[in-house]
């Protein structure tokens, strides 16, 4: 009997070594990721992208790269962005993603036109509860559901929200979550107002939502860290190199860890069958 501590130690080494000495991997974007990317890419100019940061720090490693990649895509394409969260702990993460991406773009910008400006190019609506209020209320008026934004500004004074009034002005809502929150958008916002919904799920729950992709209720789906890496790959392919690709950087460790798990499963099965034969 091998102690589980030895397995933990081997797993840590298998992850640590590629982090210290990564090998090059090129993620191959799958259809659900491409569907979301190209839908956003081809959205009419007057439509906004609404990103719902519905995860907490425990799933940050998997989901945060998706938010960052989506924001980069939107800012490259000059798509107007609204960010909100239906989970309280998502507030800090949403702000971190916005701060990181806006800083990266504004460091490169030479004029005010090139810059990403709050209120003109993006807004951070913050958090509202109970979830049914924003889910249904945004179909009527975004500023009524969020009278003030995260920073305390009156939302009806922000130029972006004078153009983007409700779901009719939203091209797609992308909810990134470690729970079933994207399905709330499908159940309430899509069924009632017909808004398009995309989703980013943690890998552990992704398999449950493929049927909604097949039925067309989800326009696209990013599954776990791999989904984030594939989206990063598409952003880089279309818009050139970006500063950091968090999900892609982790793919070497992900690959070696998966190989190790497969080997352990095979060894475990061989031992099991040998023991059964002996009995």
């Amino acid at each position: 009997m091998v102690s589980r501590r030895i397995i933990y130690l081997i797993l840590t080494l298998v992850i640590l070594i590629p982090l210290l000495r990564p090998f090059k991997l090129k993620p191959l974007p799958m259809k659900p990721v491409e569907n979301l990317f190209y839908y956003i890419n081809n959205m009419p100019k007057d439509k906004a992208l609404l990103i719902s940061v519905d995860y907490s720090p425990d799933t940050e490693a998997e989901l945060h790269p998706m938010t960052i990649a989506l924001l980069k895509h939107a800012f490259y394409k000059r798509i107007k962005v609204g960010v909100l969260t239906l989970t309280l702990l998502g507030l800090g993460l949403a702000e971190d993603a916005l701060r990181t991406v806006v800083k990266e773009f504004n460091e490169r910008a030479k004029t005010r036109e090139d810059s990403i400006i709050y209120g003109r190019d993006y807004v951070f609506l913050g958090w509202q509860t109970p979830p049914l209020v924003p889910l249904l209320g945004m179909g009527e008026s975004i500023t009524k559901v969020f009278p003030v934004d995260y920073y305390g500004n009156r939302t009806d004074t922000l130029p972006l929200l004078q153009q983007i009034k409700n779901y009719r002005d939203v091209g797609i809502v992308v909810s990134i979550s470690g729970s079933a929150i994207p399905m709330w958008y499908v159940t309430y916002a899509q069924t009632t107002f017909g808004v398009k919904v995309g989703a980013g799920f943690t890998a552990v729950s992704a398999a449950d939502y493929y049927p909604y992709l097949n039925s067309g209720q989800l326009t696209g789906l990013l599954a776990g860290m791999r989904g984030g890496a594939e989206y990063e790959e598409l952003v880089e392919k279309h818009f050139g190199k970006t500063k950091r690709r968090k999900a892609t950087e982790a793919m070497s460790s992900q690959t070696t860890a998966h190989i190790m798990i497969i080997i352990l499963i095979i060894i475990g099965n061989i031992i099991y069958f040998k023991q059964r034969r002996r009995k």
Partner: protein
Amino acid sequence: MSTDIWVWIAAILTLGIFSFLYKDNPFYRFCEHLFVGITNGYAITFYWHRILVPSLIKPVSQGEKLYLLIFAFIGALYFTRFIPRLSWLVRIPIAFVLGYGAGAAIPRTIETSIIEQAKATILQRSNFLNLFDAISSIIIFFGVIATIIYFFFSTERKGILKHLAYSGIIFIMLGFGASFGYTVMARISLLIGRLTFLLRDWLGIIK
């Protein structure tokens, strides 16, 4: 190595949680309790400052929207849970929440998870435009029927029903396999995230 005290605190707490991998210990339990306490404290503060003060206390104290007091009173009945003699009153706010929640959810859930999903399994001409889509559509159609029959217990499994139910098991097992594969990826991702934090943000070993 980081000079930010918050990065150090986060790193030490991460190591504290990881220490459970060796065995349960007081340091791990301290980190766990700290996490629960901070999360609740953060939530209560936010509910107070972002919801109760601007949406209830402020307008009511200015003599506006006084009708909100009725809803605040109904909501406050949740606290009667702590008074055994009056605890039955808690049913009133629960009835409101359940009534509203069920009313809003049931028709939309039927539409989303039953009608739309059933529609997606219907074979149409558009499913056969290319070979891959055609094969996928047939597998989905057959898989749904077989899985439903596996959970059909009202009659004895004989003949075609028996074969379909056994096929249902194969589809269910494939589903479990996909979920397990994704679970491995999810858990490894979380470990990679923490190790990256320790190596990059705390120790500065990797760029």
